[in-house]
């Protein structure tokens, strides 16, 4: 029974995606929506991404310095580990989990509210493909903005690590710089970006699906929003496992 309902939901999701990836009726309206969504979903998230990444970068650096470094370890190990954690996992996977909460709930509740207030019906009556009009700009906007947010996150994390050196004097800036530059593999940067593209698709499409299928009122919109965040987070974690194996 549970399997049937999962398969049914997956089928509905595929049908919705097929409707979403159709040619927009009017490209000028699509661009307008696309720019709006990039601002709403991406630009409005820059602040929280920078803030969280800055402190996490700083905390990782302090933790490694205080708990891992010893006389047997080179002085640059804190910088090296901070860079690797930020690049490989935090800025792509963990940041996307955080964004699944912020952006995913936003998408699901916005589309869900439009559904229960008949705004989606109004679009359909006008002869507009509501899935394409509402979801496609969000999806493309997220695919554009999330990789940029990942870059901002990594940069902010590294700045956070430098803050521990310059302000906290936990380690010397020279040792930190040496660690950050040590044995740098450019692919790790691209791996984070590639993973974030997949996660962006998961967050936007899954949240849009939960919002689009809402039936009822405000309680159902709230539930859809929660379901969207939970499902997106789980799918991000599962796909992170496979993508890390695949890309490493």
């Amino acid at each position, binding site marked *: 029974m549970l399997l049937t309902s999962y398969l049914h939901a997956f089928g509905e999701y595929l049908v919705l995606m097929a409707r979403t990836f159709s040619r927009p009726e*009017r490209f000028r309206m699509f661009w307008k929506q696309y720019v709006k969504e990039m601002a709403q979903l991406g630009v409005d998230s820059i602040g929280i991404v920078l803030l969280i990444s800055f402190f996490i970068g700083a905390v990782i650096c302090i933790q490694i310095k205080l708990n891992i470094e010893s006389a047997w370890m080179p002085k640059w190990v804190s910088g090296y580990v901070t860079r690797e954690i930020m690049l490989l996992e935090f800025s792509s996977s963990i940041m996307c989990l955080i964004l699944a909460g912020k952006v995913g709930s936003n998408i699901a509740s916005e589309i869900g509210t439009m559904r229960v207030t008949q*705004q989606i*019906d*109004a679009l359909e*009556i006008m*002869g507009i493909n509501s899935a394409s009009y509402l979801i496609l700009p969000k999806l493309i906007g997220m695919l554009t903005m999330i990789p940029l947010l990942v870059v901002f996150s990594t940069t902010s994390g590294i700045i956070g690590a430098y803050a521990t050196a310059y302000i906290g004097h936990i380690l010397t800036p020279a040792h930190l710089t040496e660690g950050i530059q040590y044995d740098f593999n450019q692919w790790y940067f691209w791996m984070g970006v590639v993973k974030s593209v997949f996660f962006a698709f998961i967050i936007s499409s899954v949240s849009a699906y939960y919002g689009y299928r809402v039936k009822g009122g405000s309680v159902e919109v709230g539930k859809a929003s929660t379901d969207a965040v939970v499902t997106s987070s789980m799918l991000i974690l599962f796909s992170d496992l496979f993508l890390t194996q695949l890309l490493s």
Partner: protein
Amino acid sequence: MIELFELRKSFEDKKVLKGISTTFESGKTNLIIGQSGSGKTVLMKCIVGLFEPTSGKVLYDGRDFVRMTKKERMALRREMGMIFQNAALFDSLSVLENVMFPLDMFSEESYAFRRKRAQFCLDRVNLTDAAHKYPGEISGGMQKRVAIARAIALQPKYLFCDEPNSGLDPKTSLVIDDLIHSITLDFKTTTIINTHDMNSVMGIGDNILYLYEGRREWEGSKDEVMGAENERLNSFIFASDLFRKVKENAI
């Protein structure tokens, strides 16, 4: 003109529409009335294509909507305007942008023309001053008028109104009724109104279809309602003391 032939709709085992046949003529306000659960909303949704009928035909000037391809339906929908019960305006757009929306989507005209047309529609519903406000900043009656302006922006041939007076005071309801009626006459639209409001029935009911348990129970004009001998219709329309007295006086 919209014609229905033996229209049926079931949800699993529950039969909601049980073979409705009727004709809604253009240039007339056609009212669908009936008790809650009689199938009015389902009928309206089947006509506009939000629900697929189980069987039967819906003909828009001879074109069978049920058997149309997706593309043909999309094209026909551009000839429709709909006013929803709660207006269904787009929250993120201003009043003017809401009215311009169908024009932006489907009109090939310049921005200046589209804006002028939207302003004309807002003037038509006496809402020129509210053009730059957002739906959340205006009253329910004003929202309904914006919905009417949006619905007529593309000069539709078919106008659908789902409970246009719900939640409005009697005076505003009359304004909305008059507006819909005059638009129907001016643009020769085929207007179908789903309503509970007996003032609308008596005021603008050029053609009234009374549904009872998913069946066409009675059909006639507002003038014929007074003399109708259908018991179910009479107990529905003349349920209040006021309307009973009006009928007694009329007789």
